[in-house]
């Protein structure tokens, strides 16, 4: 199963208004990999994740998840993805159980009560299952959001700075959600937390100004090396690749 590409991004460019956010990004992620996107604010990490999640249309280029684009088979793409973004996407007036039940039904899952209970158990929320989400702390909301994202057992889990504001226990839950290393689930996460990246990710991609500037394997680096490579990536200007400049004159 290794070698199968769960994510393929080719020449992805996205502009918000007139401002380009992603400029010709190429990315390939094999099944079972945990990939971290690292870069300064405004580098395009969130936008790239949202493009993978299908929430933003590519301006140019292609995004393939599990071999399909949103155009060719949107339903397969959506079923393959679990997304946890900055906002919890939960209803404050509904209980934890009700929130999960809604999503389970939206995904058309059979035996959805079982899955909801399983999700609550997996993230230690059984005790508060009948409390409204508005009463939850940040950490608990994140756990509930994770439970929501994993209800339909997606092949690809996308996390946008999901570890911020989580205590140690919640961290462990988060890592446990990744599944086994090399296992069926693929994870792409964006993070500022290099320690978390070292812990949770196999590969790291450095983004700057909407371009991929480097890609390394965490296993090949010592503890401080990651920080150094990050600093390097920020220092060197992103190289315009030969033959890829886009413009009227070309």
């Amino acid at each position: 199963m290794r070698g199968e590409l769960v994510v393929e991004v080719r020449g992805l460019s996205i502009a918000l208004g007139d401002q380009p956010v992603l400029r010709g990004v190429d990315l390939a992620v094999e099944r079972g990999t945990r990939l971290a996107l690292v870069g300064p604010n405004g580098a395009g990490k969130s936008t790239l994740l949202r493009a993978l999640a299908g929430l933003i249309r590519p301006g140019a280029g292609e995004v393939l998840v599990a071999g399909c684009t949103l155009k060719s088979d949107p339903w397969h793409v959506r079923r393959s993805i679990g997304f946890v973004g900055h906002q919890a996407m939960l209803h404050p007036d509904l209980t934890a159980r009700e929130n999960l039940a809604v999503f389970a039904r939206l995904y058309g899952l059979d035996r959805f009560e079982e899955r909801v209970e399983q999700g609550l158990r997996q993230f230690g929320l059984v005790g508060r299952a009948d409390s409204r989400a508005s009463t939850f702390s940040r950490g608990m909301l994140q756990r509930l959001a994770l439970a929501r994202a994993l209800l339909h057992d997606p092949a690809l889990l996308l996390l946008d700075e999901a570890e911020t504001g989580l205590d140690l226990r919640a961290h462990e839950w988060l890592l446990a959600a990744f599944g086994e290393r090399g296992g069926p689930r693929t994870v792409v996460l964006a993070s500022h937390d290099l320690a978390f990246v070292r812990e949770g990710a196999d590969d790291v991609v450095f983004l700057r100004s909407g371009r991929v500037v480097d890609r390394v394997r965490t296993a090949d680096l010592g503890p401080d090396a990651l920080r150094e490579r990050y600093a390097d990536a920020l220092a060197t200007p992103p190289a315009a690749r030969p033959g890829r400049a886009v413009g009227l004159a070309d």
Partner: protein
Amino acid sequence: MSRANGRSPFFRTVNTLVWRDLLSEYRSREILGGGIVFALLTLVVFNFAIDLRLESAEEVAPGILWIGFAFAGMLAFGRSFAAERERGTLDGLLLAPIDRGAIYLARAITNAILMCIVELVSLPVFVALYNVRAAWGELLLTTALGTIGFTSAGTLVAAIAANTRAREIMLPVLLLPLTVPVLIASVKATAVALGAQSVEPLPWLQLLLAFDVIMVATSFLVFEYILDE
């Protein structure tokens, strides 16, 4: 492993979303409370704004009633989408393998139900305040048809207006011209139901029905173009 494939079943999706929205509203009572108070307030304030002698009350009353419903409705539509944006829950829906039209339909149904609740509370108060006699069957039928028309257009327009800079202004500016047929027909049919006019209400009701069908169908088809993906 989820054994489900492809798109989730349409009506199940609509059901789930309507249930979700109504439950949410039941717990917070945010929109309903405001809507009812606003409708009742409109009925009362208009009484001061327009000098009503007892004999002419039933001629002017239907118009006042529907202005009240229209304003309360617009308030409600605007709030429902504002809340969706604030919580980011629309993204949650867009991630799911559901028909985009189902999102529209569920929202329209919820809005219609909420509007109907506001109207059911307002109508008895209206009849009392303005001292009119009502043929309740006709009155309720007219209200129902008019509400469907107003809500179907209102939900679509509110979805658009929610993404604009001056959203509180854009909603009425866009919606009111489009829903003139609803207002005209509803007011006329209501006037008949109150005995203020003795014309045939049937053509007006047919017009409302035609508007409802056309507007729901059109809105359902174009809704997906409002979404960003």
